[in-house]
């Protein structure tokens, strides 16, 4: 039945490269009249690039976009708008200090005798809002409404430009449950009117709540287009992550690396939480154990680690380190208790770009010792050389700025920074992202080796295979909540995906 629907837009064989990366190769997307279409894929799968190509933000190299039977090329978002393609971005980009009506008509105000026709603006705006069954006063200032309502206004503005295709790029990430419901109502209403909606989100629940079809991308490739009711959750997760699992690459030393669940606890969290990022959770990490945190992007895996480390101050619950209660207010206190933390975003939170490799490496140990106990030049150099050698950092010398190194080598420097502080508990958040395969394996081996020497490691990664290779135990997160744990014996690709997907579908 739904197959009878008219195709509004199709993108065929789209390819696009950025320097050094093939962002899209032969990607495709087909939108039909009156359907909500989810665009899914893990980080770096090419979702945002595909959308940027569609809306004229980026140019594509090969392929074509066909709308209503005609081939079109959008040189700019404005041109895309004229072709009937509107976009609402994650961050609302409206003017909060103007009225709702002004925001809806900004840039295309109806004129009357050389003046802006305010009466018409207010009347028409109110009509559009009423049509969408939104209880919003068009003459009120936009900033007086919640983010959710502002998002609706953005949608109202987008659909009023007679959009045939509406793209919603992660519109729900800052909304609460009630607000999401409201958004879904509006989406369904537009669907009935025949608008084709592209819905980009990381929340599986929402995909199954409103979407008719799902297109999955992986590493810039088109994986498939599915009807929502024909694709169970587990399968969707598996499709998004890719199923190739290399059993032979199991680098864990099975003999020496059995369960360490019986070792003494290093970290014990009871009901720890941070509002809006991670709901209360219990977690115990034992000596010499590698614990993995798994979940889709935005599931709260990084946030859980940040709360333990004090990068985000916990707002409630208890944390015990080696049996001792710790009220961590700032990372330095966690460091003093033997924790170390490699953040996910290496560029924004890891490296100090202009400082040298040496300074970047010694700085955590220096901070731990205190401002007045400057490490001698000799000690700094010896330690730096030691870790450059141990981690095989490729750098001209220890005094070049870290920004001149490649991503993988920067990551090694950050690892060296923390190993230098001789931690008991090391948190690695996506330590292998954007790193070549060889270095990836080196880092995984290092993690297993460190655990063998008695260090406890928390390993967070989007790649399930990599985690299965390195971890002894795994925590599963979904939608900001820890929903379960997997013992070593239960660790398999299938179990992990099932756990990540959750639900009974």
């Amino acid at each position, binding site marked *: 039945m739904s197959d009878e629907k008219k195709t509004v837009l199709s993108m065929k064989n789209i390819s696009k490269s950025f320097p050094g990366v093939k962002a899209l190769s032969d990607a495709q997307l087909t939108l039909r009249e009156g359907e909500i279409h989810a665009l899914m894929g893990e980080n770096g799968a090419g979702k945002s690039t595909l959308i940027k190509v569609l809306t004229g933000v980026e140019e594509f190299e090969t392929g074509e976009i066909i709308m209503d039977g005609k081939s079109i090329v959008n040189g700019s978002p404005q041109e895309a708008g004229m072709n009937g393609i509107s976009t609402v971005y994650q961050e609302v980009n409206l003017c909060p200090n103007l009225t709702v009506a002004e925001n809806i008509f900004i840039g295309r105000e109806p004129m009357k005798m050389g003046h802006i026709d305010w009466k018409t603006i207010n009347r028409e705006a109110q009509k559009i809002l009423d049509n969408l069954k939104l209880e919003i006063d068009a003459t009120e200032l936009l900033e007086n409404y919640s983010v959710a309502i502002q998002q609706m206004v953005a949608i109202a503005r987008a659909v009023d430009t007679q959009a045939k295709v509406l793209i919603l790029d992660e519109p729900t990430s800052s909304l609460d449950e009630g607000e999401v419901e409201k958004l879904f109502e509006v989406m369904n209403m537009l669907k009935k009117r025949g608008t084709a909606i592209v819905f980009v989100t990381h929340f599986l629940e929402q995909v199954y709540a409103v979407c008719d079809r799902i297109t999955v991308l992986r590493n810039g490739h088109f994986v498939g287009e599915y009807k929502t009711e024909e694709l169970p959750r587990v399968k969707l997760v598996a499709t998004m992550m890719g199923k190739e699992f290399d059993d032979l690459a199991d680098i864990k030393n099975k003999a020496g690396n059995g369960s360490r669940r019986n070792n003494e606890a290093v970290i014990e969290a009871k009901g720890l939480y941070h509002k809006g990022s991670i709901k209360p959770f219990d977690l115990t990490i034992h000596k010499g154990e590698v614990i993995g945190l798994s979940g889709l992007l935005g599931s709260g895996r990084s946030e859980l680690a940040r709360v333990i480390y004090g990068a985000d101050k916990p707002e409630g619950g208890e944390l015990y380190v080696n049996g001792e209660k710790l009220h961590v207010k700032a990372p330095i206190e966690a*460091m003093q208790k033997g924790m170390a933390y490699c953040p996910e975003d290496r560029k924004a939170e890891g490296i100090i770009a202009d*400082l040298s490799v040496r300074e970047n490496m010694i700085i955590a140990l220096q901070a731990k010792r205190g401002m007045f106990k400057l490490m001698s030049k000799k000690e700094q150099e010896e330690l730096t050389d030691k870790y450059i050698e141990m981690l095989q950092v490729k750098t001209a010398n220890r005094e070049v700025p870290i920004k001149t190194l490649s991503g993988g080598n920067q990551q090694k420097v950050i690892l060296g920074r923390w190993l230098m502080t001789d931690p008991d508990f090391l948190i690695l958040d996506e330590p292998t992202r954007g790193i070549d395969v060889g270095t990836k394996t080196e880092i995984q081996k290092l993690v297993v080796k460190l655990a063998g020497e008695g260090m406890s490691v928390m390993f967070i990664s989007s790649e399930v295979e990599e985690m299965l290779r390195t971890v002894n135990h795994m925590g599963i997160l979904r939608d900001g909540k820890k929903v379960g744990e997997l013992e070593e014996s239960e660790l398999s690709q299938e179990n992990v995906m099932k756990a990540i997907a959750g639900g009974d579908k």
Partner: protein
Amino acid sequence: MDKLKKLTTCRLFWPLVCLFLVLLFNFIKSPSFFKISVNNGVLYGYLVDIFNRSSELIILAVGMTLCVASSAGTDISVGATMALAGGVSVYLLGTGNTYNMPWILAILAGLLVSIVCGMWNGFLVAKMKIQPMVATLILFTAGRGMAQLITGGNILYIKVPNFKYLGGFLPHIPVPTPILVAIIVVVLVSLFLNRTATKLYVESVGINPKASRLFGLNSNRIIWLTYAACGLCAGIAGMIATSRISSIDANNVGNLMELDAILAVALGGNSLAGGKFSLGGSVIGAITIQALSTTLYALKVTGDQLPLYKAIVVIIIVTLQSPEFKKFMNRYKAKRAAKAAGEKVAS
């Protein structure tokens, strides 16, 4: 060739070249420029005068460098802080024939006020996350008002002669006291920066405060401290300026000096975007600015025209140091080298 390249890429190379050019111009114009003589037991000469007059600016530039490095912002209230600190000290000492209180206490009180000013600025910038320019604008306007309030809107004169020691000469010492104070400040601050991890911390926070927090630095406190230090430097400069004229004129002490201090930091090759810095560069920058003023006065440029000529020279210096200009020069050199090579082949 390699050595030359190393020299030209050194941070202090271009600031020094600029200073050298200004001095060279003077030497050509009047060969007596470099003459230093001893008169009445003290040193005299253009050079001594330049160094002496740039003392306050050097001290201000030291504090300003720290603020710029840690917060990528400038403290524009230093001029007003100078007046306020000077005003407090003079007020406490009184205008009678003897001091109302021990002079050391009065000076310490003035310096304390300047530190409090700096801490207030630091609080606004580090804790309240107000843009440094806006945060320090408060004291920029209010500071002089407070100084006026203390002095009752009058110019207060100190009659006790030894008040002039700080801005003039100490008995039996031929070097002007401001020069000595400036040297002491620069030496103490650089010792502190380099013998402790402070320089590393300040640079790290200036480049990436988020990352710095994650490896255990208290980014807010470090920014706060640099502003407090900047306030103290302004206080010291204020004492010298007040002592020079043995009086406090709340309207004119340190007037517009914040701009010269920022300029000194920039002329010293320091990026106003924060991060890595060189104290030496800022000191050279401060001396360059003063040398420029002295030169222009020697050329009979009147005080009211001075800013125009100064601006022209500053434009030239800043352009010479800009990365765009260096890129342009490199391309030009490469083109010439290619052309020369081509001609060689042809002949």
